[in-house]
């Protein structure tokens, strides 16, 4: 289907089903039960799953295929957000032109940065992209927000004001980001017994866009172009010796992943019409690296899983405070209960980043392939347990 082979088609269908049914899947616990705090099926979080999923899929096209580790991808996300909000300010709250401009501007911006940074590889490339992203952050944060030329509105963040032109904004169009009148905030809540499922227009717009982005990513992975990028990763020198100039390929990959980041930034602004400089800071770039590595570099589904995993636990872990912990360990004797809570305390609530850092280190050290590799190893172990006798000898791993 759509020019994909059977395995990829089924992957695409599984992802489509998961995203479409996410409001059900992410809300497994009744609203009045004690476990309701583990529900993730509210619109804001679901939108973030999708948006960061797109961001990570795009990052993976660069890092997973070519091996170029960019530490400045958040700059493109921020640029996308800024251009989307400018479209809101100048034209109207319709999200289509905003997202289109976000993608185009991020693409141009990444072309510029990629052209310079891709002259170097390895660590130099990482540091160069990091420097560019920090420079963009400084530009957005202070330089481009002086009274004479206010492009980014500095610390406050760019937002839409009442006196903005909005020349195409219709008289009765909603005063919020919308798609031809369908507000991104409109939510239909379905109540089934004790459960409540939210169906949010913004989420489904994001979901459809993500399906398209994911499909394109599959096509890129399976195309001769993707093969070329993998060749760059495994041995760039040999590619050069065969007389092939690899730079156009890496630059194309860089621009494509920059456009994915711009798309994510545009969607972020479309869900909440705000753009701030902190989206471009290097911590945000680090976050997408974490997502991709955690999920599984170079795999199709890995980055999406990683993004969902990090965003879910960020939300859930930061909600767990001491009283919740005491509730969980109430069955223990008092002294022991306090001790257990004291031990866990630094890792939850505000300490979520500590847990994330430790988790990330463990993944890099023991499971370089991320969650996907973990799943594969687990599946292999289960399969091999059933048939311990017949060890397939002489099994060859495909060369990277």
């Amino acid at each position, binding site marked *: 289907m759509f020019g994909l082979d059977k395995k990829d088609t089924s992957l695409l269908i599984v992802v489509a089903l998961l995203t479409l049914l996410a409001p059900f899947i992410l809300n497994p616990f009744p609203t009045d039960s004690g476990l309701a705090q583990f529900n993730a099926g509210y619109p804001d979080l679901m939108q973030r799953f999708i948006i960061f999923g797109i961001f990570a899929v795009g990052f993976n096209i660069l890092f997973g295929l070519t*091996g170029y*580790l960019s530490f400045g991808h958040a700059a493109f996300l921020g640029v996308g957000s800024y251009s989307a909000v400018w479209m809101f300010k100048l034209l109207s709250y319709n999200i289509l032109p905003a997202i289109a401009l976000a993608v185009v501007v991020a693409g141009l911006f990444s072309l510029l940065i990629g052209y*310079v940074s891709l*002259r*170097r*590889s*390895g*660590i*130099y490339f*990482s*540091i*160069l992209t*990091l*420097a*560019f992203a*920090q*420079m963009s952050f*400084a*530009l957005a*944060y*202070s*330089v*481009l927000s*002086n009274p*004479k030329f206010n492009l980014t509105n500095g610390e406050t963040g760019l937002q839409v004001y009442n006196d903005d032109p909005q020349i195409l904004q219709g008289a009765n169009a909603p005063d919020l980001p919308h798609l031809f009148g369908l507000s991104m905030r409109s939510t239909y809540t379905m109540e089934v017994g004790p459960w409540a499922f939210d169906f949010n227009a913004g989420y489904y717009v994001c979901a459809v866009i993500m399906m398209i982005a994911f499909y394109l990513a599959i096509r890129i992975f399976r195309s001769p172009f993707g093969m070329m990028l993998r060749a760059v990763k495994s041995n760039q*020198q040999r590619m050069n010796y065969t007389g092939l100039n690899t730079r156009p390929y890496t630059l194309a990959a860089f621009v494509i992943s920059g456009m994915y980041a711009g798309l994510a930034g545009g969607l972020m602004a479309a869900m909440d019409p705000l753009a701030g400089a902190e989206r471009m800071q*290097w911590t945000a770039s*680090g976050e997408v*690296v974490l997502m991709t*590595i955690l999920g599984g570099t170079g795999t199709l589904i890995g980055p999406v899983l990683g993004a969902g995993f990090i965003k879910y636990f960020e939300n859930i872990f930061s909600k767990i405070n001491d009283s919740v912990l005491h509730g969980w360990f109430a069955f223990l004797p008092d002294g022991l209960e306090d001790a257990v809570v004291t031990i866990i305390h*630094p890792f939850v609530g505000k*300490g979520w*980043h*500590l847990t*994330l*850092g*430790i988790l*990330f*280190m463990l993944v*890099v*050290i023991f499971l*370089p392939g991320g969650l996907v590799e973990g799943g594969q190893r687990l599946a292999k172990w289960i399969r091999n347990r059933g048939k311990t006798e017949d060890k397939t000898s002489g099994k060859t791993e495909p060369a990277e």
Partner: protein
Amino acid sequence: MDSILLQILNGLDKGSAYALIALGLTLIFGTLGVVNFAHGALFMIGAFCAVSLQRLLNLSFETIDETQKDFLGNPLKVKTPYVEAWFGPDVGAWIIDWAVPLALLIAIPIMLAVGYIMERGLIKHFYKRPHADQILVTFGLAIVLQEIVKYFFGANPIQTPPPDALNGVANIGAALGMDIVYPVWRIVYFCFATLIIGGIFAFLQFTTFGMVVRAGMADRETVGLLGINIDRRFTIMFGIAAAVAGLAGVMYGPINPPNYHMGMDFLVLSFVVVVVGGMGSLPGAVLAGFLLGILESFASTTWATTTIPGINQIIIYLVAIIVLLTRPRGLMGRKGVMED
């Protein structure tokens, strides 16, 4: 003329910090071939060594002083730090006053140990892995260290004042007949940095240990074949690099109150410094550190910021980009380092 000299001086103290961190980064990269994203965290740990020592010295017990009364006529409670009780009020007060310089003494063993443990416990296992993995694991370590410090010391900057004798300003241009008033501590910081940098270079140049390390940097395998345990020496060099970063952090506290993310702020710039100086070149790192520090301070003058708004924020990155495009190896980079 005075104002130019003043700007150069302004650049020197920040440049010293850049140079010290970049020197450590280059030492680690040159010896072990590892890019250490956790180096900024080591700088921060150094600064928090000073904070901890200060808190430790200020630990006090309360006594009721019958001679002093508050307005209700009750005797006042007086806090006396333990050190004052042990060493007498004068010596105790002196020790508390000189907490930051004294922290250097405890920071050296702590940082050497941290560096040693880090290398043996974690980085050792990453020599054979790709550079990307090394970056990622040290990046994760940096997050962890940063969050641990945040957990114990909170998110707000903590004041670490310099000793009273070195606080305040001095007119250092008086001898030359000029009027240059400058904070004393910043001059101390610059002298300290020069001392450390000179020490490291002398150590590498004039001791047998340093000679072996330099030989190992040039050709690790051959040195190993000659029957020298080069890994062990490189581990010690890692510890020394960590100590340099830590000492830079200890002394930087009075200039900028330490907070948990100061390391990362410096790290990004220090990487730029290393790249501008030339990966793997120690003199290049030091030179670029001071150069970029001075450039940054010149870009912060009112004249520069009114001509090009915000130039002070981006000057370092701009210089780095120009240098990389015109001299890809950096100012003093060697051939064959990181060129694959």
